[in-house]
């Protein structure tokens, strides 16, 4: 009985050693990956701040004003004025939807029979 136990534990030892070896390398690979990702993240963050600065620079009011003036004939942008406020009453109701004509033969139909066609 004993020798079997010895052989089994020896085999288990080898198996555990192999597992530990693999885990070790897998961990190192994962750490390397994390480092690479963190470098990438900080790089992207930096790029993001640059893009944000660029966006703010391109959208600075001075430049927008100049562009609005330069493209006035196309865009017709003017500074906002009090007269541009309207009231709800000035907004037209949406045009009523006309019923679809589904039966062309109904053109000659009598009044009241059109609704059945819809």
């Amino acid at each position, binding site marked *: 009985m004993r020798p079997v136990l010895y052989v089994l534990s020896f085999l288990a030892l080898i198996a555990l050693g192999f597992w530990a070896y693999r885990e070790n390398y897998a961990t190192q690979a*994962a*750490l390397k990956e*994390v*480092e690479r*990702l*963190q470098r990438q*993240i900080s790089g992207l963050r*930096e790029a993001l*701040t*640059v893009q*944000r*600065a660029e*966006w*703010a*620079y391109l*959208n*600075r*009011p*001075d430049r927008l*004003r100049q562009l609005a003036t330069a493209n006035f004939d196309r865009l017709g942008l003017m*500074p*906002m*004025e*009090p*007269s*541009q*406020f309207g009231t709800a009453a000035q907004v037209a109701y949406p045009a009523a939807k006309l019923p679809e004509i589904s039966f062309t033969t109904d053109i000659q139909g009598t009044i009241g029979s059109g609704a059945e066609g819809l």
Partner: protein
Amino acid sequence: MRTPLRPLARILQARQEGLNPDSIERENLKLRHEAAREKARGRAQLRLMFLCLSFVAAFVSIGARMGLMAATDPVEPRSSAPGAEIIAQRADITDRNGRVLATNMTTHALYAHPKVMVDPKGTAVKLAEIFPELDPKALERRFTDGRSFVWIRKVLSPEQMQRVHEIGDPGLLFGPREMRLYPNGTLAAHVLGGTSFGAEGVHSAEVIGVAGIEKAMDARLRDPAQGGEPLTLSIDLTLQSTIEEVLAAGMGMLNAKGAAAILMDARTGEILALASLPTFDPNDRPNPLVDKNAEPGDSPLFNRAVQGVYELGSTFKIFAVAQAMELGLVNPQTLVDANAPMIWGKHRIKEFEGHNYGPLLAVTDVIAKSSNVGTAHIALMIGPLRQQQFLKSLGFFEPTPVELVEAPGAKPLIPKKWPEIVTITTSYGHGMSASPMHLAAAYAAIANGGVMIKPTLLKREGPTTGVRVMSEKTAEESVKMLRRVVLEGTATLGDVPGYEVAGKTGTADKPKKSGGYYKDKVVNTFASMFPASNPQYVLIVTLDEPQDDTLSQTRRTAGWTAVPVAAEIIRRVAPLMGLRPKLEPVATDAVTAASN
């Protein structure tokens, strides 16, 4: 092979010889015991040895680990979750809607190790070609006089960096630098202030605020615990830009030396826009003036809205009237003595251009016509002590608490003694100086129904509380009077249809350094609020030395200078804030449209 205790051969032999065979047994037993003891001892020794070795191994491994840890450099844990790391860079500054006002950019600084340089002379010449401000001879001297380290430039643009790379000298090195960037250029320059480098190293440099909110909030902006959370200001970029544009146009048209404007939310005390002209670019801050004779106001760095402590003139009159109403001394219809000129001791108090609005004038007309004499009589009714207390409660005796490093330095100029003549002059804004920011805060108290709130440049969340300085009724009456100033008084050019502007003009002669006042140099102020039926915003416009030369006559009163500029600002700014113009009630048609 176990030996028997009584071996037969020896027993038989002993018997023959007549010896006791038991002694043989005893002898053998003794030998057997000895052998057993010997064996047990050996085993115990082995165990002790094993235990000993285990301890040695354990202590050696602990000791070795400690030695290793002590001998190696500290390393950050590599497997920490992203986002947990400390963000070392200075926090951004944004406007109230999150638009960037100040941010950081990574650039490089250029330095040199002259000892490893291949061609110091050629490098110096080529560097001077890239950077025209460098002197090639001085640079060459610094490269060759035996020093081992030379700073060349603090900040490089990517193009310049590429050109330096192309020189290709191994002695030229780059260090990463965090640079503060103000993408909007001169916009809100006086609010932002600016930054410069503090302690500098090869690998990094400290960015520190030198003026404005950058310096006032320096600790907050640099605090790593805030995790780079941007600082949100109360400033609105769109409003700020519009106000600066209109103000600059007005300043140019009226030949003014400088101008300032403050737009404030009357309820919360948030400053939506703060402009001071002339302005500067915080990306490239000019140097302060060194000329001793120069006035501080000559430098573009001077923030007129906060640092400009002027006599604010007639804009003060409403405070005397509001206080008298609060104390129950007068009501808007009370007639007061306004017979000009008023003689007080050796002083003569006159009206503008020698008018006489007297002999009696209703309080509401004192404000509408801006009568110095009428205000003086009201102030005398109040008395010096109560007047001082009221002005103190409106914040006129202390620097404004606004978050700019310049603010605590701008102390209002208060007369040391307060005799009755000071009571009289202070009531119409002379003899006592304060900044436009003080005026904005005090007018906000009138506009919001009588509560003095702290002006701020930071976006406020939730409701604001303040100290009540006058009753709601007094505030309401005061606003009505200010509305009359615009409708039929000195500020008729300030009326913007639909926005019910209410306000008060103020014109003050500039004091000479040598004492006395200039005849032809004035500071014009228009303090306004809108819409009068429910005041929400306070706008202060100040022009420094303006004059209106149109209509073949030189005019220097606020009604002709600051008021039209303020009106244009309100006309442009109010729609941007989503303020709907109030339409005059339209007369219903006499004939009703009908169809048959």
